[in-house]
């Protein structure tokens, strides 16, 4: 029965080895939409990012920099423009949404394209709200642009850096993600439906099409990244289970004591 609760320590070691670089207190926030480069790494849409995928909120460096990685060598991938980062199609006005994991007093928020500061929000040392969003005009810009968003902390010499790749104009007003022609295969919503075991499991870009209830063939092995509907049946470690509540599976949501509300042995 131990297998039901014990996640292999080996896996844990791998995760923590990656996370050990930054202490928890140094983690604060990043732009989630349109997705910053660190958000693309953390969502799995862009692969091979290194440790940033586990801590997209940690791109913290001294103020005054104009790069994507805050000068941190372990996050240098963020500053690599040759990675063909997928650009998000946007109109002339964009709302940038931030995820915050610690709400430090804030000096200001800055948005740059090239050397030009296109927006500036002065917070005067206030603590930000639980969520932060800014509407920024991109008037005068078109085509592919690399935007730099900076959160300047009020009571430390530090700031948080995000690069966001945008395709300005030529699309609808809403910031819908559009894979660039050179984007990795996993960024394509319809690509390779038969390769589920190797795609990054939980990226909605590769989410399986919703199916009617009970259409997963009985006996199919449980797998992460699969949308199971109430009534679907799977096999896991030789035991058959029936789905009790529709969900898209992730590692740790395989049948176990913790997921009895999702899977019942039959």
């Amino acid at each position, binding site marked *: *029965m131990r297998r*039901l609760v014990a996640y292999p320590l080996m*896996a844990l070691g791998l995760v923590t080895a990656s996370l050990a670089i930054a202490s928890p207190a140094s983690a604060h926030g990043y732009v*989630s939409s349109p997705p910053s480069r660190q958000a693309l790494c953390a969502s799995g849409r862009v692969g091979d990012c290194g440790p940033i995928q586990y801590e997209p909120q940690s791109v913290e460096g001294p103020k005054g920099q104009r790069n994507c990685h805050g000068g941190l060598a372990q996050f240098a991938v963020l500053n690599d423009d040759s990675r063909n980062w997928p650009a998000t199609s946007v109109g002339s006005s964009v709302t940038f949404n931030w995820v915050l994991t610690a709400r430090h007093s804030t000096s200001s928020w800055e948005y740059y394209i090239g050397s030009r500061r296109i927006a500036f929000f002065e917070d005067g040392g206030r603590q930000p709200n639980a969520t932060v969003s800014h509407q920024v005009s991109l008037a005068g810009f078109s085509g592919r642009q690399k935007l730099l968003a900076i959160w300047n902390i009020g009571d430390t010499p530090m700031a948080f850096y995000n690069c966001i790749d945008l395709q300005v104009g030529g699309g609808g007003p809403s910031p819908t993600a559009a894979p660039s022609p050179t984007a990795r295969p996993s960024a394509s919503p319809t690509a390779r439906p038969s390769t589920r075991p190797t795609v990054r499991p939980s990226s909605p870009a590769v989410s399986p099409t919703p199916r009617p209830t009970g259409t997963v063939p009985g006996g199919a092995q449980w797998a992460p990244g699969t949308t199971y509907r109430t009534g679907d049946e799977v096999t896991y470690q030789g035991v058959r289970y029936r789905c009790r*509540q529709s969900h898209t599976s992730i590692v740790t949501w395989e049948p176990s004591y913790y997921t009895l509300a999702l899977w019942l042995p039959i």
Partner: protein
Amino acid sequence: MREFRVALAAAALTLLAACGTAAPEQTTYQVPTAPKADATFNATDVMFLQMMVTHHQQGLEMVKLARTRGTSEQVAMLAGAIEVTQTTELEVMQGWLTGWGETTTADHHPNAHASHGGLPITGADEMAALRKATGSQFQTTFLNLLIGHQHNAVEMARMETDGGANPQVKDLANRITLSRTEQIKQMLGMVAA
């Protein structure tokens, strides 16, 4: 991440092999019972569980509110699955603390460390922001709050991984790290869609 999964699978196989003859007979499979925690623990184990109890309660409040608002089907399914799995985790953690004779909540305000960034956003502020959000803004606000909330869970789990002593609590911390990281992946995709 692929290498990571392979390693996970390999390690799981090793574990299974180690269980060997102790594995239950498949034909007489029974519904698993709640995991028990060893009697040996340290202050980090207790602090982690107490903080996670509070954190889970805040998270459950958020996902329950989401149920009453209009969200996409993917968001609704995720919120529903988080609700039921975290409810079970919460019960397990409370059971372990009670079994050890410890209180199930931290004895200081969870925001006490906010001034030095050590502890997360307060549940009250999260909920206030969420209740205020309307229409299509609700889903964006909900996802950004819950992403931050789950990042905080990973940060707390790391504390337990580094400083805890009880093997079952450390297993739970590992479970939380894996689970929240995957949930964040899903949510980042949803919020960028």
